Protein backbone atom coordinates (compact mmCIF):
# COMPACT_ATOMS: atom_id res chain seq x y z
CA UNK A 1 0.00 0.00 0.00
CA UNK A 2 1.45 3.29 -1.09
CA UNK A 3 1.67 6.08 1.43
CA UNK A 4 0.36 8.53 -1.15
CA UNK A 5 -2.91 6.63 -1.55
CA UNK A 6 -3.84 6.70 2.12
CA UNK A 7 -6.73 9.08 1.51
CA UNK A 8 -8.71 6.29 -0.13
CA UNK A 9 -8.49 3.95 2.83
CA UNK A 10 -11.15 3.79 5.51
CA UNK A 11 -8.63 2.55 8.05
CA UNK A 12 -6.55 5.72 7.78
CA UNK A 13 -9.42 7.81 9.04
CA UNK A 14 -10.43 5.30 11.69
CA UNK A 15 -6.91 5.15 13.13
CA UNK A 16 -6.59 8.92 13.00
CA UNK A 17 -9.89 9.29 14.83
CA UNK A 18 -8.72 6.77 17.43
CA UNK A 19 -5.46 8.70 17.83
CA UNK A 20 -7.32 11.99 18.34
CA UNK A 21 -9.56 10.27 20.88
CA UNK A 22 -6.60 8.78 22.76
CA UNK A 23 -4.69 12.08 22.82
CA UNK A 24 -7.84 13.78 24.11
CA UNK A 25 -8.31 11.24 26.91
CA UNK A 26 -4.63 11.56 27.79
CA UNK A 27 -4.94 15.33 27.99
CA UNK A 28 -8.08 15.08 30.07
CA UNK A 29 -6.32 12.90 32.64
CA UNK A 30 -3.10 14.90 32.56
CA UNK A 31 -4.29 18.50 32.48
CA UNK A 32 -4.77 20.31 35.74
CA UNK A 33 -6.77 23.32 34.64
CA UNK A 34 -10.40 23.36 33.62
CA UNK A 35 -9.67 25.04 30.30
CA UNK A 36 -7.08 22.38 29.47
CA UNK A 37 -9.66 19.70 30.14
CA UNK A 38 -12.15 21.52 27.90
CA UNK A 39 -9.57 21.62 25.10
CA UNK A 40 -9.01 17.88 25.48
CA UNK A 41 -12.77 17.28 25.36
CA UNK A 42 -12.89 19.15 22.05
CA UNK A 43 -10.19 16.80 20.74
CA UNK A 44 -12.27 13.77 21.72
CA UNK A 45 -15.32 15.23 19.98
CA UNK A 46 -13.37 15.88 16.80
CA UNK A 47 -12.11 12.30 16.83
CA UNK A 48 -15.72 11.13 16.89
CA UNK A 49 -16.56 13.53 14.04
CA UNK A 50 -13.73 12.14 11.91
CA UNK A 51 -15.16 8.66 12.39
CA UNK A 52 -18.64 9.78 11.39
CA UNK A 53 -17.37 11.49 8.26
CA UNK A 54 -15.24 8.50 7.27
CA UNK A 55 -18.13 6.06 7.59
CA UNK A 56 -20.33 8.52 5.74
CA UNK A 57 -17.91 8.52 2.82
CA UNK A 58 -17.00 4.85 2.68
CA UNK A 59 -19.78 2.81 4.23
CA UNK A 60 -23.11 4.47 4.87
CA UNK A 61 -26.09 3.72 2.65
CA UNK A 62 -27.21 7.34 2.82
CA UNK A 63 -24.78 9.97 1.54
CA UNK A 64 -25.59 12.78 3.98
CA UNK A 65 -26.30 11.08 7.30
CA UNK A 66 -22.78 11.35 8.66
CA UNK A 67 -22.38 14.92 7.46
CA UNK A 68 -25.60 15.97 9.17
CA UNK A 69 -24.49 14.18 12.33
CA UNK A 70 -21.14 15.98 12.21
CA UNK A 71 -22.93 19.32 11.89
CA UNK A 72 -25.00 18.43 14.96
CA UNK A 73 -21.84 17.48 16.85
CA UNK A 74 -20.39 20.89 16.00
CA UNK A 75 -23.48 22.65 17.34
CA UNK A 76 -23.44 20.60 20.54
CA UNK A 77 -19.71 21.20 20.97
CA UNK A 78 -20.18 24.95 20.59
CA UNK A 79 -22.95 24.92 23.19
CA UNK A 80 -20.81 22.79 25.48
CA UNK A 81 -17.85 25.13 25.15
CA UNK A 82 -20.00 28.16 25.93
CA UNK A 83 -21.53 26.57 29.04
CA UNK A 84 -18.20 25.18 30.28
CA UNK A 85 -16.44 28.51 29.82
CA UNK A 86 -19.13 30.41 31.69
CA UNK A 87 -18.87 27.88 34.53
CA UNK A 88 -15.09 28.37 34.48
CA UNK A 89 -15.53 32.14 34.70
CA UNK A 90 -17.93 31.73 37.63
CA UNK A 91 -15.50 29.37 39.40
CA UNK A 92 -12.63 31.78 38.78
CA UNK A 93 -14.61 34.60 40.32
CA UNK A 94 -15.07 32.61 43.51
CA UNK A 95 -11.68 30.90 43.82
CA UNK A 96 -9.33 33.17 41.82
CA UNK A 97 -7.98 30.04 40.16
CA UNK A 98 -8.81 27.68 37.34
CA UNK A 99 -6.73 24.86 38.75
CA UNK A 100 -8.88 21.79 39.26
CA UNK A 101 -7.01 20.78 42.41
CA UNK A 102 -7.61 24.02 44.24
CA UNK A 103 -11.36 24.04 43.77
CA UNK A 104 -11.99 21.58 46.55
CA UNK A 105 -14.32 23.29 49.00
CA UNK A 106 -17.77 22.01 49.76
CA UNK A 107 -20.51 24.34 50.89
CA UNK A 108 -21.74 23.63 54.36
Amino acid sequence: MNALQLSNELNTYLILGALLFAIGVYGMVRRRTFIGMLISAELVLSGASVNFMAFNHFQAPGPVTGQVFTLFIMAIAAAEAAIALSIIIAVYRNYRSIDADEVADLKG
Partner: protein
Amino acid sequence: MSPSLLTAEGLSGLLFLGFIAITLLGALIATHAERLIRSVAGLALCFLGVAGLYYYLGSPFVALMQLLIYVGAVCVTIIFAIMLAENAGSAKAATGKTFAAIFAVLCPGVLLAALVELAMKTDWSPVARATTAGGQAPAGSVADIGISLLTTNAVSFELISVVLLAAIVGSLVLARSGRTKS
Protein backbone atom coordinates in the same frame (compact mmCIF):
# COMPACT_ATOMS: atom_id res chain seq x y z
CA MET B 1 -0.38 0.95 -9.07
CA SER B 2 1.38 3.70 -7.27
CA PRO B 3 1.25 7.23 -8.57
CA SER B 4 4.50 9.13 -8.82
CA LEU B 5 5.04 12.17 -6.73
CA LEU B 6 4.77 14.59 -9.60
CA THR B 7 1.31 13.67 -10.80
CA ALA B 8 -1.89 15.23 -9.48
CA GLU B 9 -2.70 12.12 -7.44
CA GLY B 10 0.76 12.08 -5.92
CA LEU B 11 0.59 15.71 -4.90
CA SER B 12 -2.85 15.26 -3.44
CA GLY B 13 -1.63 12.28 -1.46
CA LEU B 14 1.29 14.33 -0.19
CA LEU B 15 -1.09 17.10 0.86
CA PHE B 16 -3.18 14.50 2.66
CA LEU B 17 -0.13 13.32 4.59
CA GLY B 18 0.51 16.96 5.46
CA PHE B 19 -3.01 17.32 6.84
CA ILE B 20 -2.56 14.19 8.95
CA ALA B 21 0.71 15.56 10.30
CA ILE B 22 -0.91 18.94 11.08
CA THR B 23 -3.77 17.22 12.89
CA LEU B 24 -1.57 15.05 15.09
CA LEU B 25 0.95 17.83 15.74
CA GLY B 26 -1.83 20.20 16.74
CA ALA B 27 -3.36 17.62 19.06
CA LEU B 28 -0.01 16.97 20.72
CA ILE B 29 0.64 20.71 21.15
CA ALA B 30 -2.87 21.10 22.59
CA THR B 31 -2.23 18.52 25.29
CA HIS B 32 1.43 19.16 26.02
CA ALA B 33 1.96 22.92 25.84
CA GLU B 34 2.68 24.48 29.19
CA ARG B 35 0.82 27.71 28.63
CA LEU B 36 -2.86 27.47 27.89
CA ILE B 37 -2.75 30.02 25.10
CA ARG B 38 -0.33 27.83 23.16
CA SER B 39 -2.46 24.81 23.66
CA VAL B 40 -5.42 26.70 22.17
CA ALA B 41 -3.23 27.54 19.19
CA GLY B 42 -2.46 23.82 18.89
CA LEU B 43 -6.17 23.08 19.03
CA ALA B 44 -6.80 25.51 16.17
CA LEU B 45 -4.03 23.82 14.16
CA CYS B 46 -5.57 20.42 14.84
CA PHE B 47 -9.00 21.62 13.70
CA LEU B 48 -7.44 23.03 10.54
CA GLY B 49 -6.01 19.59 9.77
CA VAL B 50 -9.34 17.91 10.48
CA ALA B 51 -11.04 20.34 8.09
CA GLY B 52 -8.57 19.24 5.43
CA LEU B 53 -9.48 15.61 6.11
CA TYR B 54 -13.16 16.47 5.67
CA TYR B 55 -12.32 17.99 2.32
CA TYR B 56 -10.69 14.72 1.28
CA LEU B 57 -13.79 12.88 2.47
CA GLY B 58 -15.80 14.68 -0.17
CA SER B 59 -17.64 17.31 1.82
CA PRO B 60 -16.21 20.81 1.45
CA PHE B 61 -19.28 22.23 3.18
CA VAL B 62 -18.54 20.45 6.46
CA ALA B 63 -14.87 21.43 6.11
CA LEU B 64 -15.89 25.08 5.81
CA MET B 65 -18.23 24.75 8.77
CA GLN B 66 -15.41 23.16 10.77
CA LEU B 67 -13.20 26.16 10.04
CA LEU B 68 -15.96 28.68 10.78
CA ILE B 69 -17.32 27.13 13.96
CA TYR B 70 -14.29 25.55 15.59
CA VAL B 71 -11.40 27.75 14.53
CA GLY B 72 -13.49 30.89 14.23
CA ALA B 73 -15.81 30.58 17.19
CA VAL B 74 -14.85 27.93 19.73
CA CYS B 75 -11.12 28.70 19.79
CA VAL B 76 -11.73 32.43 20.02
CA THR B 77 -14.17 31.90 22.89
CA ILE B 78 -11.63 29.77 24.74
CA ILE B 79 -9.00 32.46 24.20
CA PHE B 80 -11.36 35.05 25.70
CA ALA B 81 -11.86 32.82 28.74
CA ILE B 82 -8.12 32.36 29.11
CA MET B 83 -7.53 36.10 28.97
CA LEU B 84 -10.20 36.56 31.65
CA ALA B 85 -9.20 33.74 33.94
CA GLU B 86 -5.62 32.60 33.63
CA ASN B 87 -3.35 34.03 36.27
CA ALA B 88 0.22 34.65 35.30
CA GLY B 89 1.67 32.24 37.80
CA SER B 90 -0.33 29.25 36.68
CA ALA B 91 2.13 28.11 34.06
CA LYS B 92 3.38 25.27 36.19
CA ALA B 93 3.76 22.05 34.32
CA ALA B 94 1.85 18.90 35.01
CA THR B 95 4.15 17.85 37.75
CA GLY B 96 3.05 14.75 39.15
CA LYS B 97 2.99 11.58 40.78
CA THR B 98 4.43 8.75 38.78
CA PHE B 99 1.32 6.73 39.24
CA ALA B 100 -0.83 9.42 37.66
CA ALA B 101 1.57 9.70 34.73
CA ILE B 102 1.57 5.96 34.14
CA PHE B 103 -2.22 5.88 34.38
CA ALA B 104 -2.53 8.82 31.99
CA VAL B 105 -0.50 6.98 29.34
CA LEU B 106 -1.84 3.52 29.99
CA CYS B 107 -5.56 4.26 29.93
CA PRO B 108 -5.75 5.93 26.49
CA GLY B 109 -3.08 3.53 25.23
CA VAL B 110 -5.29 0.55 25.91
CA LEU B 111 -8.27 2.30 24.32
CA LEU B 112 -6.19 3.22 21.26
CA ALA B 113 -4.87 -0.33 20.85
CA ALA B 114 -8.37 -1.75 21.09
CA LEU B 115 -9.79 0.72 18.56
CA VAL B 116 -6.94 0.18 16.07
CA GLU B 117 -7.26 -3.58 16.44
CA LEU B 118 -10.99 -3.32 15.84
CA ALA B 119 -10.51 -1.16 12.74
CA MET B 120 -7.91 -3.50 11.28
CA LYS B 121 -9.68 -6.77 12.04
CA THR B 122 -13.12 -5.82 10.76
CA ASP B 123 -14.00 -6.56 7.17
CA TRP B 124 -15.20 -3.21 5.88
CA SER B 125 -16.76 -4.42 2.68
CA PRO B 126 -18.79 -1.59 1.17
CA VAL B 127 -22.47 -1.37 1.94
CA ALA B 128 -24.76 -1.09 -1.05
CA ARG B 129 -25.70 2.53 -1.53
CA ALA B 130 -28.96 3.86 -2.80
CA THR B 131 -28.04 4.60 -6.38
CA THR B 132 -29.49 7.16 -8.73
CA ALA B 133 -30.69 6.49 -12.23
CA GLY B 134 -27.19 6.81 -13.64
CA GLY B 135 -26.01 3.95 -11.50
CA GLN B 136 -23.84 6.29 -9.49
CA ALA B 137 -24.09 6.88 -5.79
CA PRO B 138 -25.44 10.32 -4.89
CA ALA B 139 -22.67 12.66 -3.98
CA GLY B 140 -23.94 14.12 -0.74
CA SER B 141 -23.67 17.69 -1.94
CA VAL B 142 -24.70 20.82 -0.07
CA ALA B 143 -28.14 20.65 -1.66
CA ASP B 144 -28.58 17.09 -0.39
CA ILE B 145 -27.57 18.17 3.11
CA GLY B 146 -30.05 21.02 3.03
CA ILE B 147 -32.88 18.80 1.82
CA SER B 148 -32.06 16.24 4.49
CA LEU B 149 -31.98 18.90 7.22
CA LEU B 150 -35.42 20.14 6.25
CA THR B 151 -37.09 16.78 5.68
CA THR B 152 -35.56 13.76 7.41
CA ASN B 153 -33.82 15.59 10.23
CA ALA B 154 -36.19 18.54 10.58
CA VAL B 155 -37.08 17.81 14.21
CA SER B 156 -33.44 17.41 15.28
CA PHE B 157 -32.59 20.60 13.43
CA GLU B 158 -35.21 22.55 15.35
CA LEU B 159 -34.21 20.90 18.63
CA ILE B 160 -30.59 21.93 18.05
CA SER B 161 -31.69 25.54 17.79
CA VAL B 162 -33.56 25.21 21.09
CA VAL B 163 -30.45 23.68 22.67
CA LEU B 164 -28.31 26.53 21.39
CA LEU B 165 -30.77 29.11 22.73
CA ALA B 166 -30.78 27.39 26.12
CA ALA B 167 -26.97 27.31 26.08
CA ILE B 168 -26.73 31.03 25.30
CA VAL B 169 -29.20 32.01 28.01
CA GLY B 170 -27.68 29.56 30.49
CA SER B 171 -24.14 30.74 29.97
CA LEU B 172 -25.20 34.36 30.32
CA VAL B 173 -26.96 33.59 33.59
CA LEU B 174 -24.05 31.51 34.91
CA ALA B 175 -21.37 34.04 34.07
CA ARG B 176 -23.43 36.94 35.40
CA SER B 177 -24.30 35.54 38.82
CA GLY B 178 -22.14 36.80 41.64
CA ARG B 179 -21.03 39.83 39.67
CA THR B 180 -21.19 43.03 41.66
CA LYS B 181 -23.24 45.83 40.27
CA SER B 182 -21.10 48.76 39.28
